[in-house]
């Protein structure tokens, strides 16, 4: 499947990655070659093969519904770039 510059721009926007034109052009090139390599998958007959999401056939363990965490806001916010009154600050979100 060929990759267009628009595909890279779209992916960059979905992933919220700022790219300048030069970078975008390089990634079109890189990604095209990677996808070309990946496209070898298309030749395989996988009819009837169930997708494998986890290497072990294990199932989810459930934890008891108990509160085990206490307030550690001060500690967690020490590594935060911008906080005020216990809130994380971001540029105004327009609803």
């Amino acid at each position: 499947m060929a990759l267009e510059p628009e595909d890279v721009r779209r992916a960059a926007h979905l992933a919220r990655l700022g790219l300048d034109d030069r970078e975008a052009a390089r990634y079109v090139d890189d990604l095209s070659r990677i996808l070309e390599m990946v496209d070898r998958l298309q030749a395989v007959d996988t009819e009837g093969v169930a997708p494998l999401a986890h290497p072990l056939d294990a199932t989810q363990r459930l934890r008891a519904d108990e509160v085990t965490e206490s307030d550690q806001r001060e500690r967690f916010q020490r590594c935060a770039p911008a906080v005020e009154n216990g809130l994380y600050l971001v540029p105004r979100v327009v609803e």
Partner: protein
Amino acid sequence: MHDKTLTELAAALAAGEFSSRELTESLLARIDRLDGELNSFITVTADAALEAADRADRARAAGKAGPLTGLPLALKDIFCTQGVRTSCGSRMLDNFVSPYDATVVEKLAAAGTVSLGKTNMDEFAMGSSNENSHYGPVKNPWDLAAVPGGSSGGSAAAVAAGLVPAALGTDTGGSIRQPAAFCGITGLKPTYGRVSRYGMVAYASSLDQGGPMARTAEDCALLLGAIAGHDLRDSTSVARGVPDYREELEASLSGLKIGLPREYFGDGLAPEVEAAVREAIAVYESLGASVREVSLPHTELAIPAYYVIAPAEASSNLSRYDGVRFGHRCENPTDLVDLYKRSRAEGFGEEVKRRILIGTHTLSEGFFDAYYKKAQQVRRLIRQDFLDAFEDVDVLMGPASPTPAFDLGAKKDPVSMYLQDIYTIAINLAGIPGLSVPAGFVDGRPVGLQILGPHFAESRLLNVAHRFQQATDWHRRQPAFGKENA
């Protein structure tokens, strides 16, 4: 002291030949002297190490020493360490001082080990040469012009250079085994789910696994015993007892059935590497093992499948780095989208961006079935190859990498770099354990023999590696770099 194995150091500490503080001071001095050139550490935690060493010495004096008490080691900078920067090799987390400890970090601390610091790595564990680190490339102690491999390149180089007797690495597509091979040490990627991933910064969650890197299989056994086990905080960790991995080390290899995957000895394998590997296999035959050829027919699909699955998971796992709660945030964002786009553009390096873009693209509408679903189907076929092979043989053997360590800067094209991992990647897709042991040299650069086993066969793999190390001395060789008078 720096040339001793973990096991030897444990015996020396127990015998009172030296204290943990003396050992720690000696290694810190060595790091101080040598790591400027090697660049294997991102952060050295000297003060905390000395405190931990003193605690260990006091515990020993009080008769409360365990098998790992006072032993120094290093942690790949992907493991969260409370109060210590956990950068993951990225500018994004350059300022991230973790508020909590990873489960394995807690376990190692509880066992009385002494962490000397955090080792260099490819950014977010994405790379095979350690050239993708925000903190600069690591050099291979065997040849400073060569890469140490990646992504656990710092851990491998530090152990090889005798800066630390053992280190933790992580392996998503070969990131423990390939650098272990390139640096002439022993590295084990355990079965997926054997070691908790809690607190290990995620790259590709269904493939990531932490494991030990040391000089010998015996040391890996000691360390694996300390970090393995079920963790209630990791849903994918396996509730299964942890054996004493040292118990079976000495078991006889007589009757061992070794399979050589035909696909691991084909085009692209450097003849000198093949020769070293075949020589190692001959050693096994002399130890009573039988060898036969097997086939893993979907081998060539492993890299394509991996470069769909791993980037897809990574693109999602790395969305949390948005400049809001931790990590890099750009200056003066004009609005929310600007905050996201610039923080992430500035915080992530080129390879990370490349993989985020691939993963985002292959998961997006209209492509999901052709890429992601297809790759997961192929993943099942790849796992089945191994399950079938282990019906007939006990272990599989082959090269860990098609070539020895290549030169720094030699591989500029991402795809040719990806193809380096041809022999290691399928193992992560299948979730089986794999290990690399030193098996010779090509032009002064180490060659690694890769040994693979069925799920949860770590004891067997360590036994097979250990017996080899009793019969050979490749793992005893030391690089000229760092020798006192070199």
